[in-house]
């Protein structure tokens, strides 16, 4: 028999340990850096390569040569020379290539000529799976946009950019002027809609920013929306201009990203995926990121400083953003580093054994590809499944794109224009909030009733009350959550003062009746049999609570009068008062509702266990105390509760554990919005509810999937620490109030 118990106990410990290990294994990959393998090397023909890119399936390279030609290089076998072919007619005879801009996110070259023309070439790959092999046949093609001629002087243009926003398309470039200065010229491209689809692109209004510029421009970038230009001056200052469909240009903002570095001079700036953030490099390898953010005071989007990265060992030579996530690859000499914008984390870095001419991140974020200065191509396979995860992402305040300020936030569905936000902190706060409100309501009620039932109620009534409570404990929480969300939340939210007054009314009513009771003449008082007093208190208490409920409306119409715009008159509304006067948020499914519903789930547990432990206090103690002339209340307070302290404490802890892990009530009775405050009128998102809500979105072994395991792990750690601490305290209490054997 004891052997059986041993086996049972040990296997429980083993099972818990196994779960722990399992969860730990699931979350470990989140904290791994990128793994980059040894390189696979190809020799590419030396045609004077300016820049290269690669298709999705990494079968075909495309390169731009100094002569302005585009070549395609199928990557077949390692080591061998790669044959080159072209599908490009090349540049028109009079287009002398002066500069290029390679948009790696979109496989697009923006080329400029010596006489002020701009050409945009977009490389397209089609994948043909008809061959039946795993690897499709890749067929390249080139899309040539209409040529734009900037200005009228036919002077050399350089640093051209092209942006195709949803509403506006923009071509812009730097151009020399006759008097030796440099200006910025921009042209709007228009496209008419025809019944047969979009018509051909046409060149619309043009702008010359010369009068707006405040220095010698060195590089420009066009916002992804096509309605803004960022101009960098040689001295490192940046100016941000807006441009509309009529090519009217206005200066929006000016700033200096290198203000902290004296004497720094500008070298380059590039967008990160999503075109919300620009990384600025100076000539020493120092680089910082600024992102667009909506500034409420200004009611518009401006650039604000967001991130600083570790310096590169030397000046930047090559930059490549990922088109999958917000990482970017930078190189200097033989040094290469893969950084993540969001957390500023270095995913990988190394000194390679060749000098890097250019490096790119493979489109699927599964390899890093380097072209060295001796025309050799090195492909390094990479495994980095969870680039955005990590301690910083989970626990630190982060400045996200789009809004100012460093915050903790959870928003699992990220994308190009939307950073994934995976902070555990608001979920932990939400968990604590839900638990605190639940305990706030449950503990006084449960403990007081346990004291009452165990110490004062007639045993015959107790035999009815206890099983009732136990049935309550077995109510499925989904039912409680359903009731709370559907029925209770509108009632509570529409009548907060009534609810408050009713709750206060119960206590006040009970207290007043109690006072009146003690003042009653003895001959009335002593006629009520011991243990039945409850019913003489219950009636008046309920009556006062009812009065409180009724009076709530009066109070609302009296103290909380607010002007209702939709009705056009003053109304008494506590809800509007909270929003307008206190400036707090108010949700229908809020922490109060959760408190009540969770209270329902937790009260029976705390009640049952603490009532048991109080009833289990040896009767000898009780009769000893009573025989010494103590009242029942004194006996309860001085003898029973201290002796049962360990059990009462366990009850609280088990209730706490239930509240912390409770899921269905949380999911159903709150709006599950991520909050970080303890406002009673907003809901919360708890760790457990988060798992339940997000589980359907989580792709197996994906970042979200593992992050949900992290939620579970934190919950586990929460309860584990809590229980350990509680057990220690309980042991101490038990020793202190040990009953005599």
């Amino acid at each position: 028999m004891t052997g059986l118990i041993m086996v049972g106990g040990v296997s429980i410990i083993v099972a818990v340990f196994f779960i722990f290990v399992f969860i730990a294994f699931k979350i470990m990959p989140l904290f791994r850096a990128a793994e980059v393998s040894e390189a696979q090397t190809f020799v590419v023909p030396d045609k004077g390569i300016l820049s290269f890119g690669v298709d999705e399936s990494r079968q075909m390279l495309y390169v731009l040569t100094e002569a302005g030609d585009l070549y395609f290089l199928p990557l077949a076998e390692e080591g061998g020379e790669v044959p080159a072919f072209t599908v490009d007619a090349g540049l028109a005879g009079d287009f002398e290539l002066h500069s290029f801009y390679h948009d790696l996110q979109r496989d697009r070259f923006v080329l400029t000529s010596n006489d002020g023309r701009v050409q945009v070439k977009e490389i397209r790959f089609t994948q043909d799976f008809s061959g039946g092999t795993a690897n499709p046949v890749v067929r390249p093609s080139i899309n040539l946009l209409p040529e734009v001629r900037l200005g009228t002087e036919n002077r050399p243009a350089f640093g051209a950019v092209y942006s195709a926003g949803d509403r506006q398309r923009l071509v812009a470039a730097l151009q020399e002027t006759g008097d030796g200065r440099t200006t910025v010229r921009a042209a709007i491209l228009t496209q008419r809609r025809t019944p047969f689809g979009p018509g051909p692109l046409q060149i619309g209004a043009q702008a010359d920013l010369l009068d707006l510029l405040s220095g010698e421009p060195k590089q420009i970038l066009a916002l992804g929306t096509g309605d803004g230009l960022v101009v960098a001056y040689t001295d490192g200052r940046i100016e941000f201009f807006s441009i509309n469909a009529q090519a009217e240009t206005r200066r929006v903002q000016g700033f200096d990203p290198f203000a902290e570095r004296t004497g720094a001079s500008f070298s380059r700036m590039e967008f990160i995926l999503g075109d919300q953030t620009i990384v600025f490099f100076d000539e020493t390898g120092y680089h910082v990121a600024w992102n667009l953010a909506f500034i409420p005071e200004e009611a518009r989007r401006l650039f604000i400083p967001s991130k600083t990265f570790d310096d590169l060992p030397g000046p930047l030579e090559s930059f490549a953003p990922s088109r999958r996530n917000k990482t970017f690859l930078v190189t200097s000499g033989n040094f290469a580093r893969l950084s993540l914008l969001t957390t500023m984390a270095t995913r990988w870095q190394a000194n390679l054994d060749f000098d890097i001419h250019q490096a790119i991140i493979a489109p699927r974020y599964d390899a890093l590809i380097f072209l060295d200065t001796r025309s050799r191509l090195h492909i390094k396979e990479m495994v980095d499944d969870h680039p955005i995860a990590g301690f910083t992402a989970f626990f630190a305040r982060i400045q996200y794109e789009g809004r100012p300020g460093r915050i903790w936030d959870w928003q699992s569905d990220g994308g190009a224009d939307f950073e994934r936000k995976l902070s555990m902190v608001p979920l932990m706060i939400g968990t604590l909030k839900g638990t605190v409100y639940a305990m706030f309501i449950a503990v006084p009620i449960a403990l007081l009733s346990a004291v009452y039932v165990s110490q004062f109620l007639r045993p015959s009534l107790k035999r009815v009350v206890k099983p009732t409570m136990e049935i309550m404990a077995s109510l499925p929480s989904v039912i409680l959550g359903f009731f709370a969300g559907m029925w209770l939340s509108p009632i509570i939210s529409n009548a907060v003062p009534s609810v408050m007054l009713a709750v206060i009314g119960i206590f006040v009513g009970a207290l007043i009746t109690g006072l009146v009771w003690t003042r009653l003449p003895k001959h009335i008082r002593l006629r009520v049999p011991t243990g039945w007093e409850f019913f003489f208190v219950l009636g008046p208490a309920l009556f006062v609570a009812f009065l409180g409920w009724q009076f709530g409306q009066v109070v609302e119409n009296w103290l909380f009068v607010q002007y209702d715009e939709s009705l056009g008159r003053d109304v008494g509304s506590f809800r509007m008062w909270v929003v307008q006067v206190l400036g707090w948020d108010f949700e229908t499914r809020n922490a109060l509702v959760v408190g009540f519903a969770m209270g329902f789930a937790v009260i029976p547990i705390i009640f049952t266990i603490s009532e048991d432990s109080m009833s289990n206090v040896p009767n000898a103690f009780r009769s000893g105390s009573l025989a010494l002339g103590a009242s029942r209340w004194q006996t309860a307070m001085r003898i029973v509760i201290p002796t049962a302290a360990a059990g009462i404490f366990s009850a609280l802890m088990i209730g706490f554990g239930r509240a912390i892990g409770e899921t269905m009530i949380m999911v159903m009775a709150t709006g599950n919005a991520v909050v970080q405050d303890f406002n009673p009128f907003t809901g919360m998102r708890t760790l457990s509810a988060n798992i339940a809500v997000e589980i359907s979105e989580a792709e197996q072994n994906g970042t979200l999937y593992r992050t949900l395991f992290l939620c579970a792990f934190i919950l586990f750690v929460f309860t584990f620490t809590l229980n350990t601490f509680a057990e220690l305290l309980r042991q101490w209490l038990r020793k202190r109030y040990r009953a005599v054997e």
Partner: protein
Amino acid sequence: MSHSFQTKVQARSAAEKEPSTQPDFIQVRDFNFYYDGHKQVLFDLNLDIPKQKVTAFIGPSGCGKSTLLRNINRMNDLIDGIRHEGDITIDGHSIFDPLLEVISLRKRIGMVFQKSNPFPKSIYENIVYSLRVAGRNRKAELDEVVERSLRGAALWEEVKDRLQESAFGLSGGQMQRLCIARAIANRPEILLMDEPCSALDPIATGKVENLIHELKKEFTIVIVTHNMQQAARVSDRTAFFYLGKLIEYDETEKIFMNPGNPQTEAYVSGRFG
């Protein structure tokens, strides 16, 4: 009349007691007692217990000695479904008077249980418990009460250096004497003892018996015991119960030397069922 009783209670607990002129301090009259509404365990008891004497209740197990004892301080009130007929008076006042508060009754009556039941508190706090619940918290007074009660229970010398330690650290005999000290701390008039020595060894028993001799100078003591020698040694009067009925009640000497009832004789001489 209830008033006079009340004031007397208060006056007594504070002031020294003057010897009562009334010999029959506790009077039990035509007393019937029922558990669970109908299960009668005491039948038509009539019994006078004199002041500042030791009265012993003896009788076979289950005959109702404890039930009668617990009625005297109304500890039976805690039990559901009890009922009684007849009356018990102390100093001429009924303890069942609806206008009498049980708490003030119990303050006049100390009780020592069969199994020692110190509270899970320090020795000191155990003793002063009855004062604290009466709202008396003056340190000087408490200190004085602790010493007096412990001396009264012949325990002072043994524990005076460890008053703040847990009462559970005491031996069984010490614990029982602690419970006696606790019962007399608030100077009750009556001390009820339900088999106080049944869990003790002969030496500890001896100490408690000596103690009872001392205590009867001050208190009216009622003791339930199964030990005939003990009854003979400590008590002045002895009542013999059988099946809920009072069979014989007389001077202890008479009961043991010359019982008037054959059942009594059989019981005290150990020839009983």
